[in-house]
């Protein structure tokens, strides 16, 4: 059932898998924020390498991962190409130079700075993508909820996240069953056989029963939760949030260090506005 999903419900057994949700969530969000706030490849490259190492270390399903990585990479390259088509000299704006390497026409030029900017941007995107991919595949929904709770997100919001994951397989199964049942009654979902508008309208035939039966269970679930004291206190504890492992203890100073880096970046960004956003070794 859940082999199509990237997030898994049963924890793995590698170094990263064994960390607490708290550590995973903190490090992930700190790294993502650092990636967001910087355009300096000297900071991003280590994070990219770290993401690749992490991803490899959790021994994910090869086929699934390679497919999505190639897809995202191509999508990014395509986006960069579009950017080039619109503004071939974008490097001048972002990096601050225009060393022409190749000239198709007066407008369509290839400059070293634009290429450098593209490289930096690709690093930024791929680092945050691979980091997310490693994160998703090393955390269970319950750990995610517990981890979010540890960074002071109200537990009721965390409950929404873990409950959503609890019922995704059920809803996926219902969706498939309803679709199949409608197909045997003659619903044609093949794109070659019916127009876009017809198909859009036909989706209503699947959505109505799916939505009705999905929301039908809300009452029962809520009663089950009320009967077991949900919302009794202002806070709750987490069964899945185990005690710190050796790894968590080792990484605790790293979390502090990342906090420091992030704060420095933010302060620098406020105090010191560079002329050009992207650092470049030759400018």
């Amino acid at each position, binding site marked *: 059932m859940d*082999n199509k999903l990237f997030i898994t419900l049963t924890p793995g057994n590698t170094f990263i898998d064994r960390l607490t949700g708290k550590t995973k969530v903190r490090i992930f969000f700190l790294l993502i924020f650092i990636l967001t706030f910087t355009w300096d490849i000297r900071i991003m490259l280590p994070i990219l390498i770290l993401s690749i190492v992490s991803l490899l270390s959790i021994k994910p399903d090869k086929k699934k991962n390679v497919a999505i990585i190639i897809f995202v990479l191509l999508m990014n390259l395509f986006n960069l190409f579009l950017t080039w088509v619109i503004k071939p000299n974008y490097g001048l704006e972002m990096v601050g130079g225009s060393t022409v390497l190749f000239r198709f026409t007066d407008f369509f030029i290839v400059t070293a700075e634009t290429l450098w900017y593209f490289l930096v941007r690709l690093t930024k995107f791929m680092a945050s993508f691979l980091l997310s991919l490693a994160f998703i595949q090393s955390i269970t929904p319950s750990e995610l909820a517990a981890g979010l709770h540890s960074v002071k997100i109200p537990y009721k919001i965390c409950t929404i996240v873990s409950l959503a994951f609890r019922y995704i397989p059920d809803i996926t199964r219902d969706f498939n069953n309803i679709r199949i049942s409608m197909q045997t009654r003659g619903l044609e979902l093949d794109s070659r056989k019916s127009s876009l508008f017809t198909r859009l309208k036909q989706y209503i035939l699947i959505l109505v029963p799916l939505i009705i039966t999905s929301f039908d269970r809300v009452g029962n679930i809520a*009663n089950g939760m009320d009967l077991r004291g*949900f919302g009794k206190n202002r806070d709750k504890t987490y*069964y899945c949030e185990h005690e710190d492992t050796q790894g968590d203890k080792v990484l605790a100073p790293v979390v502090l260090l990342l906090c420091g880096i992030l704060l420095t970046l933010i302060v620098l960004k406020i105090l010191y506005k560079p002329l050009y956003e992207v650092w470049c070794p030759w400018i």
Partner: protein
Amino acid sequence: MSAVIEFKDFSFRYKTQNEFTLHDINLTINKGEKVLILGPSGSGKTTLGSCINGLIPFSFDGEIKGSCNVCGLETKDASIFKISEHVGTVQQDTDAQFVGLSVGEDIAFSLENDMVPRPEMLERVESSATIVGMEKFLKSVPYNISGGQKQKTALAGILHNDVEILLFDEPLASLDPAMGMSAVDLIDRIHRDHHKTILIIEHRLEDVLYRHVDRVILMNEGKILLDTTPDLLLSSNMLKENGIREPLYISALKNAGVEFTAEDKLASIEDLDIDRYKDKILEHFHTVKESETKQKNKKLIEVRNAFFYYDDYPALKDISFDLYEGERIAVVGKNGAGKSTLAKLLCGIIRPAKGQILIEGEDYLKYSIKELGEIVGHVMQNPNQMLVKDIIREEIELALKLNGFSQEVTNQRVEETLRMAGLYPMRNWPVSVLSYGQKKRVTIASILALQPKVIILDEPTAGQDYFHYTEIMNFICELNEKHNITILFVTHDMHLAIEYTDRAIVFTDGEMIGDDKVYRILSDDDIIGRASLKKTSLVTIAEKVGIDPEEYIHYFIECEKKERANG
């Protein structure tokens, strides 16, 4: 003895309804008692349960008259959290109740909400999981465990709070026969070993009586009709008239002309002195003659050595059987045995990896799903998953429109179908006003519109009380008898198989382990064990009296058929 639950002149009306659901309830339940609250759907038994566990008035607003006192708390003034410290509830829908992402987490849910520190939580989860026998599954995810295991998890999740009262709302509704038996057994063990007060809300009387019950409260139309011992209840004639199915052995003895007195120990077939009735049983057994067996018509579907795999996991292994025109056949077996895979295979949603399926002698691979839809129809278990339109007529029209029939043919077929299904007078009614049984009828009709030769029904009576069960089954049988439609039931309800089918096919782990008359299947201990079925009480009678169980079940089926034929 001290009272733990006390209703005094208690009435309740839901805010959304005009009529009262409970009327003048006066009921006392003492500490340590084990009580069955019995009643058909809509009798108010579940509402009574909600009054005890505090859902009324916490979740369901309404008007309360009189008093309901649970463990010294007046429920209308106490919070649900306070009440749940005394009353633990196992809900009917164990799937909805399972909110954790693993067994351990779900058991821990109330401890988490109580802010119990994790080390203590682990210990308490472990010990309550051990009581119900789930300690080895703490890391299992909800999709990989059975309904019975989910129920055990739910039970463990309330046991660690040391509640005084355990309330089970229809605990047998979603379990197969063998699991149902072990659930009743587990409840009994907890009652004895942990001295809890137990309340069981159910309509499946025979299954609950598999273990001793102190008292039965019979409810109907929001009132308590009877508050007595199981023996007295069974010797009364109040079951059938209140929509409750008698235990099979009671029906069998009544068929033989046995009359009961209040002194008879009727509650358990093990304690009942069958010898006293032996002569009557034997005498009647020999008078009933076999009705003519239907002669086999032509073969409609032939399944030949079919295999199917999900990824690499074999879901169906070497399946072969024939389906004859006009037959009624049951496909039985526990969850995950391959029953629904078979149904999908017959509808052409999946196709065999190896082997062949012939429809009227032709390879079915040449038909598309859509074309097969006009030969094999499939009715899902939950009618709400099938109903799309607001008006009955439109729902029945839908399949015809999707299949591109002309307006003329559509109109004619819709009218025919509506008449066949007895829905013609209601054709312009909105679907929203229909009862469950009527909705079921509409979904069957929506499939009938395509005039299929075979209809596959997935658990058509799941969760229904005897009245609705009979209503649905009579309708299906009428379609079979009057219109010669072949019916294939996918079910784990053995009553259904006994009463309404000619033949049963039994699945275990993707293999077909039986294809025979129902009475033969039910007297085969090996099949019963492997398919998680249950030995019926008829076999016990037969063994005690010394008749061949197979013949006795056969005889019983004949009696029931005659009785139904006579109305």
